[in-house]
């Protein structure tokens, strides 16, 4: 038996709420977050309150948990570091050297690297930390 029901016309999906939502998310991420260079190796920076927002130095030393040393994104070893660093500091010893170390790294290593920076002629050093939001 055919009742001959009228088929409803194919309705187009209403996409406007989706677009609204995506716009909201987009604006949230654009406004609330900051785009930062992602480090090659995962780092959990130490937490402190007394840090200041500074520009990242022109020379960045990244110290990973597994003895990785990166100088401006190039892998070097602890043995090479003094030589490479003094070459990098040669033109201008006032360059800011930023040290990024994992929070779980032995402090001994950081102090050794600070000493290497000093021996290489560096004068301005900064230790990169993270501040907890709301702190």
């Amino acid at each position, binding site marked *: 038996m055919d009742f001959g029901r009228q088929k409803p016309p194919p309705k187009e999906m209403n996409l406007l709420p989706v677009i609204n939502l995506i716009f909201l998310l987009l604006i949230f991420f654009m406004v609330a977050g900051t785009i930062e260079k992602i480090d090659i190796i995962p780092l959990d920076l130490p937490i402190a309150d007394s840090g200041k927002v500074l520009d990242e130095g022109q020379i960045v030393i990244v110290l990973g948990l597994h003895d990785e040393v990166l100088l401006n994104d190039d892998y070097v070893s602890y043995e090479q570091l003094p030589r490479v660093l003094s070459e990098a500091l040669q033109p201008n010893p006032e360059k800011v050297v930023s040290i990024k170390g994992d929070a779980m790294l032995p*402090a*001994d290593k*950081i*102090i050794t690297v600070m*000493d290497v920076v000093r021996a290489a002629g560096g004068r301005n050093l*900064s230790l990169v*930390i993270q*501040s907890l939001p709301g702190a």
Partner: protein
Amino acid sequence: MLIERRQRPKKAMQLTALIDVLFQLLIFFMLSTSFVRQESIELALPSRNKPKPTQATPAPITWRVEVAAGGQLKLNGASANSSIVSKQLQQQFGSQPDTGVLIISARGVNLQELVAVMDMIYLAGGKNVAVSNDKTRPVPMGSSTQGGSVVARVPMDVGGRN
């Protein structure tokens, strides 16, 4: 004269392309933003070319904070917890702001513990901070030329002179 135009059927705006672009942007921003605020603790190193400042200027009063693994603290040789250390440092900085603080980190101390101590000293008002990692290898201390902090290994006799 009335020419009846045939009305075109109303076309829905093609939104798919817009949504594609929006999704791309969204994914880009989601992946590239970080909500961790990176800050820095500024440190000034003594120049290695300068003569030893300890010879030219009278040795400043230096307090010694020893950090052991696990974050236990010793202030000038006596065990103390962090609130006591911070209180005493505040008092000292209140009367003599240029008091130097030498942080000696023992073996097994991690960076977080060291930074926590540095943080405490800075928040108490310290300006002249030195860090040492070893009790046996003394390296001359520099002076804080720019009013910043100094990081160097410091000879133990400077640290012990209170």
